């Protein structure tokens, strides 16, 4: 290529790639994900906001805690765990639910919004492939959001514990029972596993489906995303009076029996939970799901190549 441009020394230099070797894919990926976070601040604002509101509610509930603490020594260990641990589980569930909602709304708009506001023409004027673009958008609900939600959950639970300890200490009560019974510290590794595997990997076909619809639909992607599964479910019910498809989808949302078991065991501090990751990883449902995700994303990459403003 360079030999032909002998009249133009500068372009020879450029053609030889001295000035600029292509950037590694990891760098393009990093900036693409950052770009997503700039555009969609809800990814961190929504879970953090919900956590703040929850903390506010919790700080009011500490007043009850003062009363309950007096009764605590007469309860058995399980009852104590339930009493002290429950708000912490609420916090987890709330932040998980928020992350799920944010992920769903993000995904259904991710490859649609750029076509609607025509900015796809700007993104495509830069040396970032459709593969990197789609993968970076898939990484947001599958990796970034679970990690963020985990971090926010841990932070929230710490704040809860410190707040209630401060109040208890201030009123001259013992915090030893509280700290030994909330049982959050040893649950965090399990929680991280849950966020990454259930909210990330297990639910990934849902996000991949939404991304596929968002690159394909010319209008109302949310409708296109919801109607086909709904129709299939209803037709199945009418035709065969079964609900396999519906439970298949539901299973993807809840994490399936395996996912639920992980959380239950984690909360119950069941020694079996040590084996849960292994059980999860050999679950064929996980791998079938990942294959479906890969197929959806590959189709999305191909479709985006020919997509322009709408």
């Amino acid at each position, binding site marked *: *290529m360079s030999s*032909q*441009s002998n009249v*133009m*020394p*500068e*372009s020879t230099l*450029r*053609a030889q790639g001295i*000035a*600029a*070797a*292509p*950037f590694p894919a990891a*760098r*393009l990926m*990093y*900036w*693409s994900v*950052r*770009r997503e976070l*700039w*555009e969609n601040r809800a990814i961190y604002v929504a879970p953090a906001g919900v956590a703040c509101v929850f903390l506010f509610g919790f700080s009011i509930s500490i007043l009850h805690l003062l009363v309950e603490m007096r009764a605590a020594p007469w309860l058995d260990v399980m009852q104590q765990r339930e009493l002290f641990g429950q708000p912490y589980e609420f916090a987890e569930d709330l932040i998980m639910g928020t992350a799920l909602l944010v992920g769903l709304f993000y995904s259904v708009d991710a490859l649609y919004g*750029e076509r609607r*506001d*025509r*900015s*796809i*023409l*700007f993104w*495509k*004027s*830069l*040396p*970032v*492939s*459709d593969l*990197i673009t789609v993968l970076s958008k898939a990484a947001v609900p599958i990796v970034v959001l679970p990690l963020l939600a985990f971090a926010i959950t841990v932070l929230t639970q710490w704040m809860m514990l410190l707040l209630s300890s401060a109040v208890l200490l201030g009123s001259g009560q013992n915090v030893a029972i509280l700290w030994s019974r909330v049982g959050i510290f040893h649950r965090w590794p399990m929680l991280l596993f849950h966020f990454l595997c259930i909210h990330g990997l297990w639910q990934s076909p849902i996000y991949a489906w939404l991304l596929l619809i968002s690159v394909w639909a010319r209008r109302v992607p949310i409708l296109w995303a919801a109607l086909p599964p709904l129709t299939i479910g209803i037709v199945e019910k009418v035709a065969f009076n079964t609900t396999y498809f519906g439970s298949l989808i539901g299973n993807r949302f809840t994490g399936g029996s395996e996912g639920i078991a992980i959380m239950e065991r984690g909360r119950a501090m069941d020694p079996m939970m040590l084996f849960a990751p292994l059980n999860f990883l050999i679950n064929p449902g996980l791998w079938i799901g990942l294959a479906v995700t890969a197929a959806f994303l590959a189709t999305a990459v191909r479709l985006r*190549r*020919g997509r*322009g*403003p709408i």
Partner: protein
Amino acid sequence: MACIEARGLRKEFGTTIALDGIEMRVEEGRILGLIGPNGAGKTTALNAILGLLPYQGELQVLGRDPWTQRDQLMRDVSFIADVAVLPRWIKVWQVLDYVAGVHPRFDRAKAESFLAKTTIGYARRVRDLSKGMVAQLHLALVMAIDARLLVLDEPTLGLDILFRKQFYDSLLNDYYDRSRTIIVTTHQVEEIQHVITDLMFINRGRVVLSYSMEEIESRFLELMVHPDQVDAARALKPIDERQVIDGSILMFEGADRQQVATLGEARTPGIADLFVAVIANQDKQAQGAAR
């Protein structure tokens, strides 16, 4: 190697033929003005060149197939599309960071020095900038990219006359260095008259005229004739004739300059007049053929 080489480039949208066998070859270092009426296929041709559209026929841009190698191609090509495409939510510092993050040939300092000449603040969002400022921002980004091909599709659409003049001035003075190739389409043809080195007319998906500006000068001639000389001038077979207040203006292609000049005042036609003459003639012929 040519910067762009197209042979029999075709594109159909359903039953509409947008590109009907485009042949073009653009050498490196040229500034090509691509002119055509609305719906002539300009944007389709540019989109094919930029790898935004699949096409039939042969097309090589800087030795690459744009459709399958868009991302590699974009290391050497920049473009400003015919509409404001900078995302409205992005802040000025973010777009600088991002382009610096993904483009190996982006010189951030250069972009910042262009922006320093404007009143654009780094903390502002694109949606809060005026149309002219968005164009300035986009131009600053594009000019800071050391590209080998720059494609501008109606870059000054909707800008006031001052911005438009500034736009082409900085393009010529601060960007163009004879090793880069620039393709520009616009309806404001008179603005690019003194900017371009090559001219190409596209109509109904075909290239109807393609010359360098030197060739245009030696080939085309416009003659201002007094009414009493008109018949003599018409005998020389002008390609176009139009009336003005004190006579007629006739346009000739490949005529003997000295012979023509005896009949009146001869000069090189402007691109706009040439465009009207060539395209209108072609459309008339097409209508005639249809009958």
